[in-house]
């Protein structure tokens, strides 16, 4: 939908959505939120961009191809599970660091896992929506 008003508003809403998605991701362990909903919200940000500015515009600001996001997300989730194995505990055993980091909070394998979820969900929704919209535009 080519609309000056929408396009201009998108420029503000887009980063807000992304920011908020990260907020949801890292808060999820303690408050409502988490990787899923974070990933979904992030995806809506790009979807909005694609809707108002075209798929090409959305692709331009994507940090990586959606497939790569999916693969990376899956590997991150997998890696978080392997940490436990490497430590001689069962697969996916939650292990936590002691220091607290900015944004992330205490680093722990569940956080990495949730981040993997976030990336995967983002990649998935983007791959689906961008593919479809691209075809729709064609």
């Amino acid at each position: 939908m080519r609309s000056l008003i929408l396009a201009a508003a998108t420029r503000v809403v887009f980063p807000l959505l992304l920011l908020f998605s990260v907020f949801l991701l890292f808060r999820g362990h303690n408050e409502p939120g988490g990787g899923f909903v974070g990933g979904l919200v992030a995806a809506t940000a790009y979807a909005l961009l694609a809707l108002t500015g075209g798929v090409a515009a959305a692709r331009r600001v994507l940090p990586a191809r959606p497939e790569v996001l999916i693969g990376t997300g899956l590997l991150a989730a997998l890696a978080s599970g392997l940490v436990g194995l490497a430590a001689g505990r069962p697969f996916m055993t939650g292990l936590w660091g002691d220091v607290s980091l900015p944004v992330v909070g205490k680093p722990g394998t569940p956080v990495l896992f949730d981040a993997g979820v976030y990336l995967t969900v983002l990649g998935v929704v983007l791959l689906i929506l961008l593919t479809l919209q691209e075809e729709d535009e064609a």
Partner: protein
Amino acid sequence: MSLRDLLAAALMLAGVATALLAAFGVVRMPDVPTRMSATSKASTLAKMCVFLALALAFDDLGVAARSLAAVAFVFLTAPLAAHAIGRAAFALGVPLFPGTKVNEMPRRNDGEGCDPDP
């Protein structure tokens, strides 16, 4: 009951009343633009009131900040929806209320009304 609570309650009730008004409007108004008109602002007002009530009701700076942020979001996004719908309805040629006095907006294409999805 503290004054803040009272104020919050009043705001909440005002918001709810406005929301009800919006719903009432969407039922009563005769055509798409008027319905959209009724809902977009009344509901925005409603949301603002309710969020302000929230900001007051919790003795928590964080909640207040988030509530105000929510109001900002609402101001930012609610008009976009109204704009998009109004524009689409107009472009589609959805019939206007017969009482519409002025129409200075040119039809963009053929002006033929077409239902996209009978």
